[in-house]
């Protein structure tokens, strides 16, 4: 299978949120209770049954008021913090297509991946409502099941979000074709964020009309230092038990503490 990727051209996104619904329908994800909070944005956060959501950002720019529509979603990193942090062999893997997927039957619920993600994406199923046990982690799978079982002629083998997008804001392409798209976007004055060859070598790229933070994206995404230490320095030294304690404490801080603040729910 050729390496694949998703391109999010925010200049074409109208925030119809067909992607949010399509994701829930295809993946059989239950709706979460929501209420109006003074924004169109809902649900208020990603979750074990919410793999993607549109972020609505009102931004004053030199050109006047802009309404930038961002998207919270797994970036399917080549250098994936979640994979680095995961202590269970085979629980998080990268497929040939580039998709990074969690196998909940192997996941032990340690939540390391939750705080190790540079983009704050995985969420854990506190109550075990998804049927895999408590605290199992969930996130976007790049619709690996559609990719494997779909029909090429009818494009049912592309992720549900890309299939439903009416404007072409979301497209599913061969990585080989990215450079040409990316050059064209740059020529139009769009900023390319992520993608193959970027620092984290992501299989998702954004084309932006503004700065990343104006879309709810981190300006300089990086794997948090504790994960880096764990994987590249401490783990080889065999200090597993010691670090687990440290990491768990940090995990709580990162996962529970700052999670709601970063994604522009209020404006």
């Amino acid at each position, binding site marked *: 299978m050729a390496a694949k990727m998703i391109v999010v051209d925010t200049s074409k996104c109208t*925030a119809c949120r067909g992607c949010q619904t399509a994701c829930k329908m295809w993946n059989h994800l239950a709706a979460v209770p929501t209420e109006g909070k003074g924004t169109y944005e809902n649900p208020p956060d990603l979750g074990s049954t919410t793999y993607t959501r549109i972020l609505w950002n009102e931004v004053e720019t030199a050109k006047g008021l802009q309404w930038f529509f961002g998207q919270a979603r797994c970036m399917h990193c080549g250098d994936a913090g979640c994979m680095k942090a995961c202590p269970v062999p085979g629980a998080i893997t990268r497929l040939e297509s580039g998709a990074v997927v969690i196998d909940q039957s192997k996941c032990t619920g340690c939540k390391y991946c939750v705080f190790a993600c540079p983009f704050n994406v995985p969420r854990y199923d506190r109550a075990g409502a998804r049927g895999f046990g408590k605290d199992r982690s969930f996130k976007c799978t790049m619709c690996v099941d559609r990719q494997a079982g779909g029909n090429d002629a009818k494009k049912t083998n592309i992720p549900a979000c890309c299939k439903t997008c009416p404007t072409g804001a979301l497209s599913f392409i061969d990585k080989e074709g990215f450079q040409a798209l990316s050059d064209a976007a740059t020529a139009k004055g769009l900023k390319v964020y992520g993608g193959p060859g970027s620092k984290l070598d992501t299989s998702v790229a954004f084309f932006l009309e503004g700065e990343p933070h104006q879309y709810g994206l981190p300006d300089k995404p990086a794997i948090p230092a504790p994960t880096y230490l764990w994987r590249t320095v401490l783990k080889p030294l065999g200090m597993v038990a010691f670090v687990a304690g440290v990491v768990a404490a940090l995990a709580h801080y990162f996962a529970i503490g700052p999670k709601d603040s970063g994604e522009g729910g209020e404006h």
Partner: protein
Amino acid sequence: MTNHWVDIKNADVVLIMGSNPASNHPIAFRWITRAKENGGTIVCVDPRFTQSAAKSDIYAPLRSGTDIAFLGGMIKYILDNNLIFTDYVKLYTNATHLVNPDFKGPGELDGLFSGFNKETKKYDKATWSFQVDEKGVVKKDPSMKDPNCVLQLLKKHYSRYTLEMVSSITGCPTDKLEEVYKVVGSTGAGDRTCTELYAMGWTQHTVGTQNIRCMTIVQQLLGNMGVPGGGINAMRGESNVQGSTDFGLLFHILPGYLRTPVATDASFKAYSESLVPKTAEPLSMNWMKNYPKYTASLLRAFYGLNGGSLETQFSWLPKTDVGMNCSWLTIFDNMYKGQFTGFFAWGQNPAASGSNSNKVRNALKKLEWMVTVNLFDNETASFWRGPGMNPAEIKTEVFFLPCVFIFEKNGSLNNSSRLQQWRYKAAQGPGQTLPDADIINELYFKVRKLYADKGGAFPDPILNLSWEYGEKDANGKIKEINPETVAYEINGYWVQDKTIDDATTKQARPFKKGDLVPAFTYLQDDGSTACGCWVMSGSAALPAAAVPAGVDAKGNPTPAVPAKPRSLKSKGRGKADPTGMGLTPGWGWSWPVNRRIIYNRASVDGTGKPWSAKKNILKWNPDAEIKPLANLPAAKTPPPKGGWVGDVVDGGGAPPLNADGSVNEKGFLPFIMKGAGVSSIFGGASLAEGPFPEHYEPLECPVERNLLSGTRINPVIKIFKDAPEDVFATCDDRFPLVGCTYRVSEHWQTGVITRWLPTQAELAPGNFVEMSVELAKERGFANGEKVVVESVRGQIEAIAIVTKRFRPFKVGENIVHEVGVPWHFGWATTARMDVKANGLPYSNPTFGDSANLLCPTVGDANTMIPETKAFMVNVRKWTPADEKGRG
């Protein structure tokens, strides 16, 4: 739509005004995005910075209800800067026509046109007419300099709409006005075209029809009608609303836009002839001269050959009283007054969708019985247990008939592009649900039996109906409706054998009883054809006989071709695009005769050459030979040479000018549905308010006077005043904010379907009210706070969205705030209705009641579409007492 969805991609300028397609027509944005990718400029004019505004190159704000002022200024700008497409305007519009010298406009009569009667609030339209010569032909001034010619009158009328005046009325800054005017005005010349996309933001006003007419004047001046990437495009509020009007769901028309007969139509002949415009214009095709063929064929579709003569069948048709209005607002006003005993609320939810919903809800109490046909329980079906209702006192007996969803039945729908597409049943409906057509079938045979057994008043129309829509049981009852049989009746068929002269090839062409008609050009006025909706005639493909294997003229063997049964073109899914302009004639079928852009003869110059080589959909080839039909004897007189290449031409025949520019006496002007053959810049007597659109304020407005004249509101609207709910508050300190209702992507109409879908309720969980940062600061509202929005008629709870996307308007010397609320919600939530899904409670109940509780009972003077896009409200802090009031 005059054009079609895909054609939006051909536009150089897309004007989004009176609509918000990014939210409400999300798929449309695929083509708007293409236009942008092709270098087009997207312009959005809206009171609020919408999702569409976010995707536009230019956004201009305007206060709700001031579109005519905005567009009037645009017309003035186009005329002042000489941006008109002169050749087009001279040849294809009535700009050169001379108007009755006694005609006077609002500039002279303080906001009124000549002929206004203050007592009756109606116009005598005698002066809204044209000067004619001794032959009855309209007099013209090709130089367009005569002070009574349409162009000069237009200039005079809109000379009052200066940038400063328009800015004062609309609240849009003058530089923004100029920016929009300039870019739209740039499409008058060369290859450039502008398309206009509107929806309920234009129709739901007391001046709704004139809003749209005002834009048609802009498009005529710029030569943007009939051309690719042009047109006036109504994006329908529901996927089959186009179908509902095509098939006469409105009270004033029968299927195919034929006028509903009135009591004074003395005979079928008189009725049919009254539909044909009188014209002496030599180059006018006056297509409506064919209407008697369509009315005759419609009667045959209704009654077959029962009763014999068309006159007898016409006597069976229901007729309205002269001047009788049976529109939505009037129906509920009459229901309120106790004039109905029963009511079918079929596929609708008036207790939430009806403007001034409290009046609607109280009207339902006056009924003896009501039948509701729907998917889920709703505010209408359960009105008797809604807020403020005492079930013990309500006598209305309610029957709920569950119907299937669109994907649980076969059938077709007509979308905004006038495109009919067949849709296939994908799943079996649950329980005892039935398709709507089968519910009608059951009702019909029960009612028919009652008439047959007991007689009753006027049984003939029921007993003589032709009802051949499927297989019959032993008692002659149709077991279940086969929608294809309905589709073939809509196409039309011969009810007797007849041989006619084929209009194109001039060959004698025999047809047998039961044969399908090839198109509406074959329909007859003598009762020999039946057709359920003439505009849809041609939507079926005729069967073809098998061709045996043989040898062609060169001696090469030709393969056998099997017989082809009849079929429906709406099932076509061909993607071929021969013109490269996105017409894809093999995809579905659009009326009329699969023409994708109507008035397409206006896309070429007088000699039939495309105005633009880049936007070429049609051209005249004077040397083309008409091919005879196979298996028929040759024509006695061969057909004249000449033919059109490209899209299906409007009407046929030659263009109005010869190649040397001289008039071709056998040619035709492009606007074949108009008596004069040209489009109307001057509207004559067609509309209630006047021949040119004039700005009037909404019934409820924030200003004491119309800045343009002493006539504040549309002078000819009907004011309802008999019900206690019919109250209005204008320039009232209690309701100082302009209110507007709209929709979100996630919900459908009143939400009867989508509020029951947890994924949709999750995304849009309830009422909100959007307001400016300035207003919130002034009133002390916090973002996310629960508030109450109230008008003089009702109130709703909502969550405040405080946003920079609403800005205060400077109207005259005053600051005017506007707020907006979506109208998808209602009190009958999944939590309240005590229902279960697979034994479990429904998740995600929504919050808030219908925003239509706020809106007035007042309508457009021509259509009676309610004014729900501009009315006056207040927003106040929420208190626990408001929760109790929820009921």
